[in-house]
């Protein structure tokens, strides 16, 4: 199956670029980031806080079917320009991965299409490569934390 998302990760660099063209107009693409209810649907997580403004914060968490929190993340919004740009930090809680900086740029294309450029800057080359090598880390942590919860309940 053809993948529409492109990842540029140059060797020895501590950043990467995620690009994707969408078959939806710019305003709708941006809305998917702006509206917490829509964001929840495509990210598969629960939005606890989403302050779409300069100096605002956001936080989300994912629970298993039993309601145990298995993954949580947060960040600060540095810039929020509707239909153009979001600059924010992103931090996965309870993981060894340091906070990362994200520049999201939303572009208008012709014929009701749009494009997202997501530039992600990591603390170091090693940190970026760890995330790249272990893209499943999030899912694994989820499973792992759930396991810990079950085990602690048995005690």
């Amino acid at each position: 199956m053809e993948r529409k998302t492109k990842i540029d990760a140059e060797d020895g660099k501590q950043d990467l670029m995620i690009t994707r063209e969408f078959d939806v107009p710019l305003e709708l693409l941006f809305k998917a980031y702006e509206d917490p209810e829509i964001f929840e649907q495509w990210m598969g997580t629960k939005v606890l806080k989403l302050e779409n403004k300069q100096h605002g914060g956001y936080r989300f968490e994912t629970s298993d079917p039993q309601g145990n929190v298995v993954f949580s993340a947060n960040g600060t919004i540095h810039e929020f320009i509707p239909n153009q740009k979001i600059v924010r930090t992103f931090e996965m809680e309870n993981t060894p991965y340091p906070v990362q900086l994200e520049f999201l740029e939303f572009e208008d294309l012709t014929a009701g299409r749009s494009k997202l450029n997501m530039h992600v800057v990591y603390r170091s080359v090693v940190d970026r490569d760890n995330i790249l090598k272990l893209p499943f880390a999030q899912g694994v942590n989820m499973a792992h934390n759930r396991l810990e919860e079950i085990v602690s309940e048995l005690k």
Partner: protein
Amino acid sequence: MNLRRDVFQAIADPTRRAILVLVASQSMTAGAIAANFDTARPTVSKHLQILTECELLDQEQNGREIYYQLNPKKMKEIADFIEPFRNMWDDRFNKLEAIMKNYRPEKKEDGAKNKDRRRRR
């Protein structure tokens, strides 16, 4: 040589993936790794053996203990390793696209939010 296929088989198992995540941040002994799982110790040992055989893990003797650590070089050699990361984002974005294609602001109770709905180009 089937090494390439073996590597992907190795990471296809959730316990082995969890082991890789564990040792990504620090080298650990087999005992310390096993303590993180609700699995019998010999099963964990078997997983460690498979990961070591396909060079995803390095063994390092430190006194009487053997420490396991991630082999970043091996990880890097696998060019396709970026694929799961890309697929994760691609899946999310496909979902986003599908949701927004069906998005109808009129359906919402509070029309105020969408009163300035822009013209489509």
